[in-house]
């Protein structure tokens, strides 16, 4: 695996964070299947090493932008189960007071600028966050997560051009899970995804997104360089989503076959494989890993129960937060 030095604590936190994502998604899926969740949601299961490998290379001051498939990024950037499940169920204690839901979920206090229901919609936001960092002399880095399908959006090329021209501290993280809804990537992406970034003079890498240490290692290096003004960077992370495009996409034989799913789930699972590696390295025993998982699953279950009981926002909230307040004092000439 990777060559950056980690201590056991780092390893175990990465493992835990991946398990947290999986546990969150399994519960979200159950909520949907048992008709307890309003609307739809997109599962991150299978892609955990991407979010965790990257976010573990970031500080709370670094920012990320997320996607419609955003629970994984949210957990990886430090969010709490309770506030996440409350958001998923439209409850007042949710991160967005129930106003955002799955597609806009974000623990804003940890630098998550939000999931986004417009494919590619946050590419400008991430790049703008990096522009602000550079302008204000702050050394934080922003990571922009998006899918392979999103590389079809012209906005990406507009913002990469500016990021390259101005050496902005932004990392474009393309989660290539092989599909854009019900369509294979090769049917909708001509040429090479990394070459598209390179054409703008951006250093691009393509790596195995199932290997959390490899992802973390590369990200650490790029983040350090981005902090020094050597950005932007582009990473293509090869990964796979275990579920359908969204929770309701159950019969997917017409666009991908079960064998393919089995190859990834059985042979390339980021959690299982990292678990085995931890065991092999003597970092943790199977029992210890099991205990970690049990504890996380119990926490998730409790959070779900809490969220199911939690209150909806009051009707009076419906027209709150359309506009942010501006302190009248700042609108005076002498302010």
């Amino acid at each position, binding site marked *: 695996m990777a060559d950056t030095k980690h201590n056991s604590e780092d390893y175990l936190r990465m493992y835990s964070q991946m398990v947290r994502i999986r546990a969150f998604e399994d519960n979200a899926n159950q909520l949907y299947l048992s008709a307890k969740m309003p609307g739809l949601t997109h599962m991150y299961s299978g892609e955990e090493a991407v979010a965790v490998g990257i976010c573990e290379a970031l500080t709370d001051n670094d920012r990320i932008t997320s996607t419609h498939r955003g629970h994984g990024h949210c957990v990886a950037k430090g969010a709490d189960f309770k506030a996440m499940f409350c958001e998923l169920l439209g409850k007042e204690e949710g991160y967005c007071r129930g106003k955002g839901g799955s597609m806009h979920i974000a623990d804003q206090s940890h630098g998550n600028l939000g999931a986004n229901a417009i494919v590619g919609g946050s590419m400008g936001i991430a790049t703008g966050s990096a522009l602000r960092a550079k302008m204000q002399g702050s050394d934080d880095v922003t990571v922009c997560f998006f899918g392979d399908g999103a590389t079809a959006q012209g906005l990406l090329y507009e913002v990469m051009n500016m990021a390259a021209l101005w050496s902005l501290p932004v990392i474009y993280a393309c989660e290539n899970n092989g599909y854009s809804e019900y369509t294979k990537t090769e049917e909708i992406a001509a040429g090479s995804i990394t070459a598209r970034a390179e054409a703008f003079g951006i250093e691009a890498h393509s790596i195995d997104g199932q290997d959390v240490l490899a992802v973390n290692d590369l990200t650490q290096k790029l983040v350090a360089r981005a902090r020094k003004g050597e950005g932007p960077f582009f990473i293509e992370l090869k990964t796979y989503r275990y579920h359908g495009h969204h929770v309701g996409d159950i019969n997917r034989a017409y666009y991908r076959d079960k064998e393919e799913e089995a190859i990834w789930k059985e042979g390339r699972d980021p959690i299982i494989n990292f678990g085995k590696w931890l065991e092999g390295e003597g970092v943790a025993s199977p029992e210890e890993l099991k205990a970690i998982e049990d504890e996380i699953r119990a926490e998730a279950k409790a959070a779900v129960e809490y969220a199911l009981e939690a209150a909806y926002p009051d009707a009076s909230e*419906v027209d709150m937060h*359309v506009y942010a307040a501006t302190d009248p004092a700042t609108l005076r000439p002498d302010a």
Partner: protein
Amino acid sequence: MREITLSKAVNEALAEEMRRDETVFIIGEDVAEAGTPFKVLSGLVEEFGTARVIDTPIAEPGFMGLAVGAAMTGARPVVDLMFGDFIFLIMDQLCNQAAKTHYMSGGKLNVPLVLRTNLGATRRSAAQHSQSLHALVAHIPGLKVALPSSAYEAKGLMKTAIRDNNPVVIFEDKLMYNDKAPVPEEEYLIPFGEANILREGKDITLIGTSSMVQVCERAAELLEAEGISAEVIDPRTIVPLDEETLLASARKTARVIVVDEGHQSFGVTSEIASRINEKAFYHLDAPVMRMGAMDVPVPFSPALEDLTVPTPEGVADMARKLVAGEMIHAA
């Protein structure tokens, strides 16, 4: 008469027109094998092949632009825009290019294309997948705008849209895809600019668009039980708008409520109310009232979302007040 879903009605309209005219084709995301996430197009690729039912990358401005170019040079594209909210991405191609080409070329070039998309909240899809943005396109000269209110309407309006020589935007209501209505087996088209009077009445006129037609009909039933006779009218197309039918009804009942699922302010209800006020003012006993969606981004939480759109009870309430002359106090 057989009953079919709105989904099936749209599908039939497309299939019939594609059989009739080989220049008609469909372009959009996941329209072929997947038949769109709403499954409205299922089966079309089997009949017409991937050359005429074209899956695109996730590049809305791009494929909208392609459609404009294809339309200008002899094809009749039907663009599938998965959610009405994505219209913001294609406004330049739609409003600066498609809408203006005929005029800017002095009538030399035509852009016969259909943009099919949707509107409607209460699907728990949050602020970026729930908007009803038809007022925006209605503001731009050169575009026509159709708002089907049932399976029957959806089929007839779609067929007319495809044959029209201009860019036409059709907004289907996402929540109505599975709603059934009687639809004849025989071919029919619904002309643009002819409103439909669904129910005659004498005390008040309820003008509703898209899904709000159902809301108005249900309100009319509530009112009927109390002895208030409401006329319900569906304009069908807001551009062109059948002013005559709306004005005649307003002059007859002297009271009007306009109901639409777009945001109320600077929206469709404002336009219709203004035209009636302007041209039937001295016949009115009360101001034309508007009921649009609240001026808030659509909230995810079910506890909030349902508050943002007009309901039959709300419309009936307002109607009662108007009939009772209570709006005088508001003035």
